[in-house]
């Protein structure tokens, strides 16, 4: 008998268990609370398609090497499969399976007509030349063949893949369709360079979505963002944009931690100046207009809002008790583990969960897909306005559902996602 996806994950050795456990637990908690139809639960606990391809690519020395690529398609009841492609040596079917499932929930909560998928190739890109990367990418695209398509499964950048890789996938895919189909198929990938059909506003989308959520939370709580204090973990794309976008509200950035260390200044740190410094020095370490602090002191900083925008499992049983904030707005994926979540609830700290708060990225990917499909090109203002509507709509749904089920916002977000999928299955039924 086929094992359910959650069983497959938990059967793995300890070292391979990770943040996906949190997601599986959340899925189970939300399913129990909303009394999800057991038949639909069965469907969602398993992926739809798992494609493994072994393909050759010619190296610079003329020799051939074999590579293994994956594409897991979890569920497409809401629309075409959507999810990133990652290149790194540890890619395996379990990791891709977990991340594909996560994408289904993320798209459902964001209210966009996409299902969940993920893929990748197990190899170390740092050991390959530009030319080899191109040949590997093109052969992988060719090997996937009909398993991806603009109306079927749309890849996007992820770990070690970027707009250049997307451009190669686009070109290879277009070469495999008839000339009449080519201009109708450029939405085969998102995350493209703007000149090749990418969207305005994609770079700041995740940070912008996070700030829209915070703005709405402040409105709900009658909380004035002017002179509010906030701290950020992670000053990469999401963290730096969130900081820059909060500045016009008059909010004060009082502490930042990134991979090089942590800094604090109760008088405020200018996000724009810090961004310039980080671009030059590759980290916040040594920023002259702030004091250096250690990891523990960073978590103890008194602030109104904390935006974790770095990596997973940072708010844990060790760090959650240290937090002295009113709101945690999760810009990163899975920054809070199960224990950390419980402590935040005990401390009455409000939480904007990751699948709601960092959905801006996938929403603007949807906008890119939509623009390509309609042969349109939207101005930045239009992208921002549409993003605001989508994010606020998702926020309100999560808020109302959490109140209706008298539960926390993370569980509420999962219930919103599962309800929309359940509704479609109930209406359409199962063939035959």
């Amino acid at each position: 008998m086929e094992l359910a996806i959650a069983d497959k994950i938990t059967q793995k050795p300890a070292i391979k268990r990770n943040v996906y456990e949190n997601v599986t637990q959340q899925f189970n908690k939300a399913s129990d609370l909303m009394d999800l139809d057991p038949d639909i639960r069965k469907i969602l606990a398993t992926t739809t398609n798992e494609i493994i391809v072994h393909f050759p690519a010619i190296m610079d020395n003329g020799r051939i090497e074999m590579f293994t690529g994956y594409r897991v398609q979890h569920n497409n009841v809401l629309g075409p499969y959507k999810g990133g492609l990652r290149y790194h040596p540890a890619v395996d079917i379990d990791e891709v399976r977990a991340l594909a499932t996560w994408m289904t929930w993320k798209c459902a909560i964001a209210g966009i007509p996409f299902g969940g998928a993920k893929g990748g190739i197990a190899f170390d890109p740092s050991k390959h030349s530009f030319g080899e990367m191109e040949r590997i990418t093109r052969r992988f695209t060719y090997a996937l063949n009909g398993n991806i398509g603009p109306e079927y499964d749309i890849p996007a950048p992820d770990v070690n893949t970027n707009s250049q890789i997307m451009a190669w996938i686009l070109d290879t895919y277009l070469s495999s369709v008839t000339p009449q189909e080519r201009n109708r198929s450029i939405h085969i990938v998102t995350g493209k360079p703007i000149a090749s059909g990418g969207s305005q506003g994609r770079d700041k989308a995740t940070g912008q979505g996070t700030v829209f959520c915070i703005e709405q939370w402040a409105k709900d709580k009658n909380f004035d963002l002017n002179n509010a204090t906030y701290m950020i973990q992670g000053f990469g794309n999401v963290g730096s944009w969130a900081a820059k976008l909060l500045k016009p509200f008059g909010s004060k950035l009082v502490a930042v931690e990134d991979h090089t260390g942590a800094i604090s200044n109760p008088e405020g740190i200018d996000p724009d100046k810090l961004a310039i410094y980080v671009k030059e020095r590759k980290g916040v370490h040594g920023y002259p207009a702030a004091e250096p602090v250690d990891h523990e002191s960073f978590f103890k900083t008194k602030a109104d809002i904390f935006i974790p925008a770095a990596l997973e499992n940072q708010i844990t049983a060790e760090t959650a008790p240290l937090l002295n904030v009113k709101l945690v707005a999760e810009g990163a994926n899975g920054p809070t583990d199960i224990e950390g979540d419980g402590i935040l609830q005990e401390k009455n700290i409000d939480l904007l969960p990751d699948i709601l708060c960092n959905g801006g990225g996938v929403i603007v990917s949807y906008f890119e897909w939509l623009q390509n499909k309609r042969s349109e090109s939207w101005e930045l203002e239009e992208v921002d306005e549409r993003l605001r509507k989508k994010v606020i709509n998702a926020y309100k749904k999560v808020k109302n559902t959490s109140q209706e089920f008298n539960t926390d916002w993370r569980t509420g977000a999962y219930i919103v996602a599962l309800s929309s999928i359940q509704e479609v299955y109930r209406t359409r039924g199962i063939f035959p």
Partner: protein
Amino acid sequence: MDAVVRKIAPKKEENKNPGICASCKNLNFCTYPRNQSRPIMQCEEFLGFEPRTKQGKKVVSLRLYQAKTRKKEKELSQYKGLCRYCVNCEQCTLPRSEGGVWICDEYMDEE
């Protein structure tokens, strides 16, 4: 003022980690506390690959690579015919006709 730098995990240990850290360029400078039993799958500060040539040197950009190739082409353009592709071209003392050499028993390519 310097930020406090925490203990940095050695790279060789991290390579055993099945997460994405092993292929991150920030690995040697990263001070985030990490747990080997919870490999990182997603990180907003992940810094990706730098493509390498077959000699192991970094490829700075495609444009630079093309510029270098064009320079080499220009240098070789003074030779015509087989000489252009012959490894002995620069040392060769045999007489060359103006229209280029098209048949030569001494011709030798890179292979």
